[in-house]
């Protein structure tokens, strides 16, 4: 937990779809809306490009939170990508929860290209949640690392 390490800064990966959420993140920037530097964005064409593997990989490599942002349901640039993403991520989150990984470390938010403020607000909330959860060790240690 963060108590052990006062200098701990969370690592947060945000997957953003190119058409809505990445543009929304850009808009948050143009509007100079602050959110913590702990969030690093990875651009993907669509939320449906986010392979659950990427999320597992991030956690395993030490991410403390992973958030996926896409176009609002019904507004997908590719018409149906976010609908598939919605099911896939629901199932993944549920599985992680079942394994005892704090469910609040994962989140999906639909952010349109016009919702810069929502993007910033979401990131602020999410970072706050991760701070309250502290360091994530669980997934990388689910098989008892010897180290």
């Amino acid at each position: 937990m963060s108590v052990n390490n006062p200098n701990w800064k969370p690592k947060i990966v945000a997957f953003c779809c190119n058409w809505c959420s990445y543009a929304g993140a850009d808009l948050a920037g143009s509007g100079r809306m602050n959110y913590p530097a702990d969030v690093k964005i990875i651009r993907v064409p669509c939320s449906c490009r986010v392979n659950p593997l990427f999320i597992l990989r991030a956690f395993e490599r030490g991410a403390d939170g992973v958030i996926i942002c896409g176009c609002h349901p019904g507004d997908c640039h590719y018409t149906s990508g976010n609908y598939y993403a919605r099911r896939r991520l629901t199932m993944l989150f549920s599985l992680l929860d079942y394994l005892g990984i704090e469910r609040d470390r994962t989140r999906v938010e639909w952010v349109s290209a016009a919702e810069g403020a929502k993007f910033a607000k979401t990131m602020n909330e999410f970072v706050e949640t991760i701070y309250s959860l502290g360091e994530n060790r669980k997934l990388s240690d689910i098989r008892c690392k010897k180290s």
Partner: protein
Amino acid sequence: MQKIGVFVCWCGSNIAGTVDVEAVAEAMKTVPGVVFSTHYQYMCSAAGQKLIADAIHEHHLDGIVVASCSPRMHENTFRKTAEAAGLNPYMVEIANIREQCSWIHKDKEEGTAKAIVLAKAAVAKLLHNKPLTAGTSAVTKRCLVIGGGIAGIQTALDVADAGYEVDIVEQRPTIGGRMAQLDKTFPTLDCSACILTPKMVEAAQNEKINIISYAKVEKVDGFVGNFRATIRKKARCVDETKCTGCSLYMNKCPSKKGKDEFNMEMNNRPAIYIPFAQAIPNVAVIDPEQCVKLKTGKCGLCQKVCTAGAIDYTQQDELMEREYGAIVVATGFKPIDPSPLNEYGYAENADVITSLELERLMNAAGPTKGTLLRPSDLKHPHEIVFIQCVGSRCDENTKRGKPYCSKICCMYTAKHAMLIRDKYPDTKVHVFYIDVRTPGKNFDEFYRRAVEQYGVDYIKGMVGKVAREGDKLMVRGSDLISNQQVEIAADLVVLATAIEPDPSARSIGTMLTASMDTNDFFTEAHAKLRPVESPTAGIFLSGVAQGPKDVPETVAQASAAAAKVIGLLAKDHLVTNPCVAGSDELLCNGCSQCEKVCPYGAITYVDKEVRGPGVREVRRVAQVNPAVCQGCGACTVTCPSGAMDLKGFTNQQIMAEVDAICL
């Protein structure tokens, strides 16, 4: 090992203000693979681009990372720079250290640290980049226009004018659409037929335009530039090449029970008919539901009188396959049925009519030959009530109608009121309205004329009940301005019913994989910047199919869609996005999961001899058509075997980014 160059942009103080660009450039020098790293005030400037080009030459770079503004801003700029310097344009990655770093963080130390991570992630990704080449696909230089109303006709004329072939597919026996049913048009009051029919004739005579009437599009395959459509031309039982449109049969036909669709079913027509005098094609059609010959085998009177020998009762539906480069959706609209809104009594009272029915009642070719007579007793109405917003602007939870404003009703109601007051000055005309919406050139002036010059009584309020009392219709409504409830004994009530997309729109949208909104209007690619294109490449939108609009707006959009079509057809080849999915056939299981999630039908399966290390066998494998694939990546995640990957966003590239950010 690849040789990568990193270029950190100051963007003046936009980046340099919160990010220590020098420190970033310095830090990047120690990253494996990076052989050159520098910073400059404005990388996107000519000098900045030259700096990049020089470095590519001097250090023999294989790829570059530009740490600058959003890739949505200058990715293309830097790709061109790289290409000009002899690098593959897809060996460029952008680290977004402005919108997603310097602009959102205030602390310089924090901003610098984050910028370094973002640049490292870009390098990590770039190390897995492969040069990509955009493919090309040929363009079939023919356009399909679905719908032959004013929108479809205008688009077809403009496209044909540029020298391209156009097929108009119209579901009814004639083109002309809704506009042909109108009497006069606002705000100029020209006769609708007088301005429309010349265009119909022009379309018919244009040798580049092929009108396929009484037909529907059944199936569309393919992709932008290369569509293949199956069109069903319904049997009209009349040979189009022989019929002269003489109408001699009209009085012979014993069946008189067909409803005249053109006159809003207010009168009957024979089983063999031409919808209206100026129909194009001016060819009769036999209604199979009404024709005695087709139903019982006995009759054949029309065949006997037809001197041209055009009648052919044995005619069958004809299926034709045509190829197109572009498709325009111009499916138009229909008024809603106001019967469920029972307070207006539309279903019970013949003298409660819709505005489109009034158009026909006022038209010289209509059921009353242009004399305004009310349907119940064919008497002249002396007091008329118009009710606006019938079924428009409703909360969706009420199930009382459409949530949108139908846009044209305010203006045509003013037109009707004005025309009636002009022609029959003894008639009192009241209009119940919620708002009068007149945003158009000369529109408000037009509405004011109705009030000031013609004395139309506009009542701010809505009608609560219409009830018959003797031969009068008692209309009770509120007058919000004088704060009283009013009751008017009217002879005729006209409902400005909402308009909705033609019922054929939904299936056409599905067929074209063109997205639609919840009201079945086609969605545009961008509400402001791409208003006449569907998000599906090669599909264009014309007229009310996209949303309610009046004639001038429809014509403007129709010409705009035509311009987009011409721009597409003018190309011999289309450059395709190289960032598409591709299947590694050595890994592919042929399990068909990917096909299920592809929104474009870009994936097919073939039995193919697969050769690899120690492998030589015939397998069922997935193939992606790169011209159809739009690069969403849905298939890559569905693929169980990891055979499917997305160029430009490969599993390895994204994993490398994840690692770089998390380490």
